[in-house]
């Protein structure tokens, strides 16, 4: 599917003869080349996980956050160009606080996803703007329960039980489909996400990575926060053990 756009791929405001906008597809490639990002919807909440590829040993652990809180009840995990992601997060935060200021209640996750998708789409409509080179997985918990949305650089947004973007998304999606999400609590979900990310990480191509996990669930009081350190360590240990089992086979 490597078609060269020759001529029709110079601007995001040009369609190709077969109805494709190549600039948007190229933007999606930026997402496909980034570290894996996973989101799953469990029985009592959402778990987001990111395979944060470490480019240099000098980087301090815990810096360059890829998962951001957008409001008390929701979080955004970014795949692709990190700087583009920051812009989307800033916009989402602003939309969320604006909604609460006007309507007096926290923004429903569906509404937030709509607004983020509209904003991403906006940047695909003008020749003097370039599309965002990042996709976003948005998880939140409002009065309709936990919800998971994924927004792609084209501005498409769908609601999911489980979503993955980035390098290892095909393998991750296969793993997620095997899970019985509707019976799983977030505590168990955290372990599973860690196992999947460790599983799809390509040891040969990329050396080191840091696992970033966050959740919104009943246990966290419906607030979006980093997974507590003890659970994070438990998840990493379980994931490493599962890897060794796989290697031993």
């Amino acid at each position, binding site marked *: 599917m490597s078609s060269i756009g020759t001529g029709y791929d110079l601007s995001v405001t040009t369609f190709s003869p077969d109805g494709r906008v190549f600039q948007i597809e190229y933007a999606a490639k930026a997402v496909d080349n980034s570290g894996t990002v996973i989101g799953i919807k469990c029985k009592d909440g959402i778990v987001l996980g990111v395979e944060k590829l470490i480019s240099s040993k000098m980087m301090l652990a815990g810096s360059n*956050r890829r998962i*951001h809180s*957008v*409001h*008390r009840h929701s979080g955004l995990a970014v795949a692709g160009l990190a700087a583009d992601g920051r812009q989307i997060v*800033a*916009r989402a*935060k*602003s939309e969320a606080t604006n909604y609460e*200021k006007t309507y007096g209640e926290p923004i429903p996750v569906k509404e937030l996803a709509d607004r983020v998708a509209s904003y991403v789409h906006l940047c695909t409509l003008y020749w003097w703007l370039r599309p965002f080179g990042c996709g976003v997985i948005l998880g939140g918990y409002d009065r309709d329960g936990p919800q998971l949305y994924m927004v792609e650089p084209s501005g498409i947004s769908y609601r999911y039980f489980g979503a993955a973007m980035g390098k290892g998304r095909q393998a991750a999606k296969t793993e997620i489909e095997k899970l019985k999400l509707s019976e799983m609590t977030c505590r168990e979900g955290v372990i599973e996400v860690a196992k999947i990310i460790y599983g799809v990480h390509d040891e040969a191509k990329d050396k080191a990575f840091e696992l970033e996990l966050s959740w919104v669930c009943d246990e966290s009081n419906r607030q979006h926060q980093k997974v507590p350190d003890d659970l994070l360590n438990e998840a990493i240990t379980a994931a490493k053990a599962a890897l060794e089992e796989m290697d031993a086979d």
Partner: protein
Amino acid sequence: MELQRSMVDGSVCMKDSAKSEISSERTLYPYVTGTSIIGMKYKDGVILASDTAGSYGSTLRYKSVERIKQVGDHTLIGASGEISDFQEIMRYLDELILYDKMWDDGNSLGPKEVHNYLNRIMYNRRNKFNPLWNSLVLGGVKKGQKYLGTVNMIGTHYEDDHLATGFGNHLARPILRSEWREDLTFEEAVKLIEKCLLVLLYRDRSSINKFQIAKITDEGTTIFPPYALKTFWGFSHFQNPSKGAAGTW
């Protein structure tokens, strides 16, 4: 139309400045007001107390106004003066705390920082001749350090071991100056505060017999439900008040 940069996330938006050119958009006098707040440090933390009255001029119109509120994990704020301006201040502070929480970096704003932020707001509003018509007491504990400060509508601010606003300055502070100690237990502190509240009840006409006490320690915040104090009106001078009066009235 002018561009305005948000202080919180640096985003830029258009703002119509026509409104601020018309001089009718200013605070001239307060409408619904709260009376004194008393605050003091004690052994484990800080206590704030107030009554729950909202006066409309000389009418005691609202009898269940909560004038002490929690701000983030480490601070309590009590307000006297215009109640609607207090609600606006709470909106600013809640927004500040929300943005601080979204960093999710293990740190949170303490009472000193919140007090400083509030100072800036109050002083800048007064310089525009559009003050928030309040006197506020801020108390809190962070990492074992107790803090108690005050700020008012002209931007004057200071810290002390015990503070009060309005009538409290004249009636409660003298009692506190002679009877306050560094190592008061919670029970002793409540007794001392109740002594001050009783004097205010007898002598301040804008106060009612419905009080709220709030405490904050390193463990957390508690705002107690409102309750009433026992008063004594059986003084001999109150019996048969017109006894010595020649003539009528």
